[in-house]
């Protein structure tokens, strides 16, 4: 039975809104920005609902959408590229070197393409398995391995450039 699109999105929101909001809060670190992103994600689903083809699970689809929405906001907005700084800093327990690492993370994330930035988040912030990343971006596990290597190379290219600025 075909659901009314509005009801379908509202039902998605009731069931999965908390996960979208939690992830956006985690990535953005700002409750107001997170709520805005959550609204944007569900509005995007409502507007372009034909794009959800059911190949991935709803939770996986929303996880990916939320990540991209947060990265876009970080890239464009006032909270620019705090994401990796927050995550890498927190996970590494960096103190004295923390500021330096955060600055590096900011610059690297900002220099990556949107897809590479999302991949960096999945692999280095979320520590997802290659299987999970494959389900998020809709490709094979092996291809994720190739992407991860390419990403490492790209990050290594970027790091020395900092000294040239």
């Amino acid at each position, binding site marked *: 039975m*075909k659901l*009314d*699109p*509005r009801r379908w*999105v*509202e039902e998605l*929101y*009731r*069931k*999965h*809104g*908390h*996960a979208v*909001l*939690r*992830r956006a809060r*985690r990535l953005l670190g700002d409750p107001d920005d997170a*709520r805005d992103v*959550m*609204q944007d994600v*569900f*509005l995007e689903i*409502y*507007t372009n*609902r*034909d794009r959800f083809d059911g190949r991935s*699970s*709803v*939770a*996986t689809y*929303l*996880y990916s959408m939320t990540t991209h929405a947060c990265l876009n906001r970080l890239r464009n907005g006032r909270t620019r590229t705090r994401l990796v700084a927050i995550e890498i800093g927190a996970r590494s327990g960096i103190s004295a070197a923390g500021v330096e690492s955060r600055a590096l993370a900011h610059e690297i994330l900002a220099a990556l393409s949107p897809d590479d930035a999302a991949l960096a988040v999945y692999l280095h912030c*979320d*520590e*997802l*398995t290659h299987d*999970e990343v494959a389900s*998020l971006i809709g490709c094979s596990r092996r291809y994720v391995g190739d992407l991860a290597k390419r990403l490492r190379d790209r990050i290594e290219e970027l790091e020395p450039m900092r000294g040239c600025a």
Partner: protein
Amino acid sequence: MICVSELAIDRLLAGELGDLEADATRHHAAHCARCRDLLDDAEAAAAAFDAARPALRLPRRAGYGAAAVAAFAAAAAVAIMMWPRDDAATRTKGRPILGFFVSHAGEVRRGGAHELVMPGDQLELVTTTVDSGWLAVVSVDGAGVRSVYVEPRPIAAGREQVVPLAIVLDGTLGSETVTGVFCPTAFDPAAPPADCTFDRFTIDKVPR
């Protein structure tokens, strides 16, 4: 088992993991402080969200932002003011009339019975009444889904008064009936009182 990701926790809470995988995840979390914290946090966030869920803001119909709708409303208002009056509307004495205009590809036209429309077209509603009162507009689309296009709102008396809400048509094809419910006072559109009157039109939505 290795530590679980937040994605795995999302899928667990969404009921998307199989029984074995879900049991393994919960078992692991019970014995791993990091994963237990992640799961506890996620469950607490879900409970807090359910207890105080922010309102979801969706457009009335799919596909267009508020700016586009407002722009259409302004353009349509001008077009409607300039439009020659419909004889059928002016002939009717006393009975409220719900009329409409269609915007398609930037052009506005007056809508008629079984008007052919397409997904993404926008409707602008107009009312003609002798007395001021209240209006709600409900629709039953080609899939049989009922939507309230216009919640009860006061309307002024007069000919072809523009209802200041543009409706963007979604992708459900087929015949859609739009009914205006005219009442003297505020009312519940699900159960309009006996002194309300109705006027309706039908549009036929075809693919682009």
